[in-house]
């Protein structure tokens, strides 16, 4: 069945709620309205107001109460209306969810879903890519799906995982990509990167919406005789280090791309990993194609300059290929 990235997420929620009665949803405008992006549309009608809870505006209480209910055996999936507003619940996410199991063996099987990413002219507070904040906080899984198949399979894994999972949906992809996905139950396990395109000259490491930009860049590069491999990381914590290292060792040239700003972004972590464990195989510097260190600007020319795309990735790849 051909579904959008958004429908795939909706299906995962619906199927998991049928499969496991401990799963319930909470968030702002998710019930009657069906969510700001309509991801949860219809679920209130199917599961009722005790399993699809419309909350007041209260990110701290949404995440905190999700944690408490998880300690009582529930499997909450909290929606934060925009990933930017996860900052409002930062303390609950980082200090409470991320540390409880380590400190006193209280598992926190919660999922926090949030639309992230730009390219939709939504300005500084509805476009952010906060994955690195959460990768830096121990105890949190960080999931960044790039395809409809993965969005469904990774969300199912997230709901079944005994740990707190930050599930960053990419709002640019919601209705822009479609694919055939199986109708029977499947999961995509955490910590397994996907090689989206095999290549031998250089490696493009990406996740979320940037996977599609990297694939588009690879097409262009192919015309120019550069054979690029494209990796989709799928989950950042846990990270599939072996697939990343294998690709780096094979091609010896790596371009890392992410939509988030540059300094201390996840690209820095990948570059460090490659420097530590694949140094001898490198034929050139590890390059990063990222957003600059600025807030996400609103006006189209500013956002287009800000956001990495296929052309910017191809340009960096050409420089590296020439090494």
């Amino acid at each position, binding site marked *: 069945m051909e579904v959008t990235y958004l429908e795939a997420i909706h299906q995962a929620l619906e199927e998991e709620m049928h499969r496991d009665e401990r799963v319930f949803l909470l968030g*702002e*405008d998710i019930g*009657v*309205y069906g969510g*700001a992006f309509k991801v949860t549309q219809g679920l209130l009608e199917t599961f009722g107001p005790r399993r699809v809870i*419309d909350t*007041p*505006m*209260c*990110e*701290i209480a949404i995440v905190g109460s999700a944690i408490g209910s998880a300690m009582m055996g529930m499997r909450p999936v909290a929606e934060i209306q925009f990933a*930017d*507003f996860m*900052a*409002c619940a930062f303390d609950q996410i980082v200090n409470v969810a991320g540390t409880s199991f380590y400190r006193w063996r209280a598992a926190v099987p919660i999922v926090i879903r949030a639309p992230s990413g730009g390219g*939709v*002219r*939504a*300005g*500084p*507070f*509805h476009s952010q890519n906060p994955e690195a904040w959460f990768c830096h906080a121990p105890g949190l899984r960080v999931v960044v799906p790039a395809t409809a198949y993965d969005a469904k399979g990774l969300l199912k894994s997230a709901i079944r995982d005994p740990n707190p999972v930050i599930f960053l949906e990419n709002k640019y992809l919601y209705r822009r990509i479609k694919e055939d996905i199986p109708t029977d139950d499947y999961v995509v396990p955490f910590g397994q990167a996907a090689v989206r395109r095999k290549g031998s000259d250089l490696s493009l490491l990406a996740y979320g919406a940037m996977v599609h930009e990297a694939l588009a860049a690879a097409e262009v590069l192919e015309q120019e005789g550069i054979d690029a491999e494209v990796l989709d990381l799928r989950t950042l914590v846990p990270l599939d280090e072996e697939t990343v290292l294998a690709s780096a060792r094979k091609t010896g040239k790596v371009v890392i791309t992410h939509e988030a700003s540059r300094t201390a972004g996840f690209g820095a972590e990948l570059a460090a990993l490659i420097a530590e464990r694949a140094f001898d195989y490198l034929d050139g510097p590890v390059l990063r194609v990222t957003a*600059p*260190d*600025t*807030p996400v*600007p*609103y*006006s*189209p*020319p*500013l*956002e*287009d*300059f*800000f956001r990495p795309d296929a052309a910017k990735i191809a340009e960096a790849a050409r420089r590296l290929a020439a090494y």
Partner: protein
Amino acid sequence: MTLPNEDLLQIYEYMLLTRAVDDRIDLLFKQGKIEGVSFSSLGHEAIAVGAAWALGPDDVVAPLHRDLGAYLVRGITPRQVLAQFLGRRTALSRGRDGNTHGMGDLNLGILGYVSPLPDQLPLTLGAAMAFWVRQEPRVALAFFGDGSSSEGAAHETLNLASVLKAPAVFICENNQFAYSTPTKKQFAIENLADRAAGYGIPGVVVDGNDVLAVYDVVHKAVERARRGEGPTLIEAKTMRMRGHAAHDDAFYVPQELLAAWREKDPIRRFEAALRQQGLLSDELAEEIASRVAAAVDDATTFAEKSPFPEGREALEGVFCDV
């Protein structure tokens, strides 16, 4: 407190201007000229204009997405507003932020709007705190919504403001909805103003569609704050007359509710009162209306002719260098 006739007519003109700019924003959005989202202040004209009118020239205000009228009263021009919505370089945020977000000007005593709600509340308290520390007779006023009232930042701010007796005024615009969420799912009390008792400060409910009532209540609160007697929580009741933002058809809002509130339209009510008092003739009404229309047309031309920023400008000004 009775205002001079001249003020009444200016208030009327600002309310009309607010609505005319808002209608133009709606049109520009429908024409595809405004990218992303766009918020409307329809129905909130009395609250925004009435409250801003009660402030002195050195006071500070933190308006939100429904408070176009407050921006205009404080001196932001329709040209600046439309340039902001169109993402042009001539806008106050130079294209970095959109719609009313980030539309601030400290020279006019306006704190730019931050999207996470209600982050403006602690900010406004901070402005009041600066006045309190320096013992200046100035006041800071913040708007927030019925939905925003549920956030932790609202509680922390009201409590600290009360403890310090800070010269601040907090106006909750209860427009019955927060996005799709009706007030009965937002809080389990009738009047948000009742929360003031829990902070040990006065709480007042006012008809948010009666501009002079709003002015009166805010004026008293501002002067009280200026005297060093501390903050006031005002709840102005009104109705959000369009969807949450331009993409939202507000299917969840009962038509009867909208119809009932349309009867209480703040501009028509004030206009009727002015006519009854003999302050507004047909000729004067026409003169004002054509002045407003000209201002909005001029602003549209200005905004549409303004250049977009160059892409590279995105890199400038992350850190202060002045």
